[in-house]
């Protein structure tokens, strides 16, 4: 490689890393805000955070392009933002604003904007795998190429029939689907030994006949490299790709959960690292950013979050009297609510 080209690709890596870091940071700052709003009684319903999983999620969000399909799950704030969700829309969903994409009908992690490929998860774990496959199937039928669909699941969701059926079907159809498994060691309180019996979940990939990749989910540079490669391969027509990342959930299952069941040994082990701290180290060590620059980025993220919350909290809430109580699009077939 010529020197000029080597430095060009170094620039590109730096740019990509900084972009990932920005989304990680924005996600973290926003989630900290949501957590404090929750504790202040400002949010009804659950708050489920992705603390510790930002590097993985942001790597995926930045690998996807406009026009791709993304079905995030519980802990993907970073990926959602990177995929184009505004901080305002995320915040609106938690605060129940009528102006948000879910209009107060659904909340928190169940939000999405499917009209632009950002699918809105249902709670039933594993269900989104086949739905993304279906989206990709449609794109292929219409002759669109170069499109990727991605979805995230936890290790717990891999125990569902839906996960198995979805991934197997995508493999049979050779769809450009990327499945990211965030193995954060706990499904709510359930430890991995009660969830699966294979030595490593990445072994499952072989059973589906798809390439499997294993990464340390706390290492942002590894996440960026591997997730971007998996997405590129899917985009190039190489069929479904499965990435398994080891990490630890650094919060409760939801903010209601004190997670006192979590093993101390895991918390102090390498997968208990905070990927945001690791990113900061990697960025400064590489000379790609100074601590002062990173601090400035945090201030900027905080300002953005404050502004969005300030706006969302003043917006109108859903009103049962003006709410359109109709569940179907074909209005002439609606029965109304006479009963």
């Amino acid at each position, binding site marked *: 490689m010529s020197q000029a080209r080597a430095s060009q690709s170094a620039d590109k890596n730096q740019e990509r890393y900084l972009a990932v870091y920005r989304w990680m940071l924005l996600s973290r700052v926003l989630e900290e805000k949501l957590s404090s709003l929750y504790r202040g009684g400002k949010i009804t319903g659950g708050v489920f955070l992705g603390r510790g999983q930002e590097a993985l999620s942001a790597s995926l969000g930045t690998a996807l392009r406009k026009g791709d399909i993304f079905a995030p799950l519980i802990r993907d704030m970073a990926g959602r933002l990177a995929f184009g969700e505004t901080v305002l829309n995320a915040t609106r969903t938690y605060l*129940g604003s009528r102006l948000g994409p879910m209009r107060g009908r659904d*909340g928190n992690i169940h939000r999405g904007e499917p009209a632009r490929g950002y699918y809105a998860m249902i709670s039933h774990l594993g269900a989104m795998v086949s739905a993304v496959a279906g989206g990709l199937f449609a794109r292929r039928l219409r002759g669109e190429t170069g499109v990727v669909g991605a979805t995230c699941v936890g290790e717990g969701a891999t125990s*569902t029939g839906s996960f198995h059926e979805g991934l197997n079907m995508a493999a049979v159809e050779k769809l450009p689907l990327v499945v990211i498994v965030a193995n954060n060691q706990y499904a709510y309180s359930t430890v991995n030994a009660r*969830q699966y019996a294979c030595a490593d979940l990445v072994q499952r990939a072989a059973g589906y006949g798809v390439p499997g990749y294993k990464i340390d989910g706390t290492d942002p540079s590894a996440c960026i490299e591997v997730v971007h490669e998996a997405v590129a391969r899917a985009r190039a027509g190489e069929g479904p790709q499965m990435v398994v990342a080891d990490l630890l959930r650094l919060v409760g299952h939801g903010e209601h959960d004190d997670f006192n069941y979590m093993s101390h040994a895991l918390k102090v082990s390498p997968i208990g690292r905070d990927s945001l701290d690791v990113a900061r180290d990697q960025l400064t060590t590489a000379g790609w950013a100074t601590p002062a620059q990173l601090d400035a980025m945090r201030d900027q993220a905080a300002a953005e979050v404050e502004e969005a919350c300030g706006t969302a909290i003043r917006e109108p809430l*859903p009103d049962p009297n003006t709410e359109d109580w109709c569940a179907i699009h074909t209005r002439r077939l*609606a029965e109304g609510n006479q009963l």
Partner: protein
Amino acid sequence: MFQNQPTTRASAAITYLEAIRAAQHKLLTDDPRVFIYGQDIADFGGAFKATKGLAKEFPGRVLDSPISEDAQVGMAIGAAIEGMRPIIEMQFADFSTCGYTQIVQHAATLHWRTGVPCPIVIRLPSGGTAGAGPFHSQSMEALYAHYPGIVVMTPATVEDAYTMLLEAVEIDDPVIFCEHKYLYYHLKADALPTVALPTGKARVARPGRDATIATYSAMVHESLACAAELAKEGWEIEVIDLRSVKPLDTDTILASVSRTGRLLAVGEAFPWGGVTAEIVARVATEGFDLLDAPPMRLNAKDTPVPYHPNLWGTHRPTATSIIAAMRRLLKA
């Protein structure tokens, strides 16, 4: 009607949730065939703590399952065939749809097809709470009651939560036990009963002569609030707590309607079909002459259960909307 003879004077009040835990404790103690299988139910004690402490006290009999509802129910069926009495806890009723095939196709048909009974109990934390949204709020009793071969219980009181769960395990058939999440902490009783009406018998929760409300689960309490409010104006509303929706105690409903001449069936589930439709259909076909006015139904709205409390409060029936419906019925 309900013979509630307290045996133990507990110092602290017992909640509906604690009654469910206590019943499982008694079942594990008394019956070696009983085991409990569900997500996060062992050391963690379950998402709602309905199995708190049980795994420790009954080692190897209260187990965390993978997130695999279909397989959880399938394994309960196999264990029941071999003579066990499994209890499956669904984390939320809504997720039981992932085990629906095993429940309605396999468990429900087994005895009829083979003569071998299928004594499994599936506990469904059911119904709405503020902010729970479309996937953590559903009332699924009608979906299960529709299928032949299944018993569906919908306890509305602490006493019933306890005694009916005990009875559920005794019954030689699949039992869907719909326990209402809204009642978990709201309802309290002084003590657990030793005697109860058998499943299949409804209870007159409040006697009256002007109109009958037939209802079940959390809606019993909204209906009682409605009756109390209208009593201030001199109306005497009878409230029937169905206790189980399958079997449905048509006799008690008809007997009530024969006294009042007016029927309002109230349920928290979606309006199409369902328990309230079944009640009205039975009264219309078997007791048409008893009615002084067309029977009425009040259900949730025909949309998924909304997340925001502003919408949820209107989506499901409440004392306020039941009062409004009752006023129309009384005028009719």
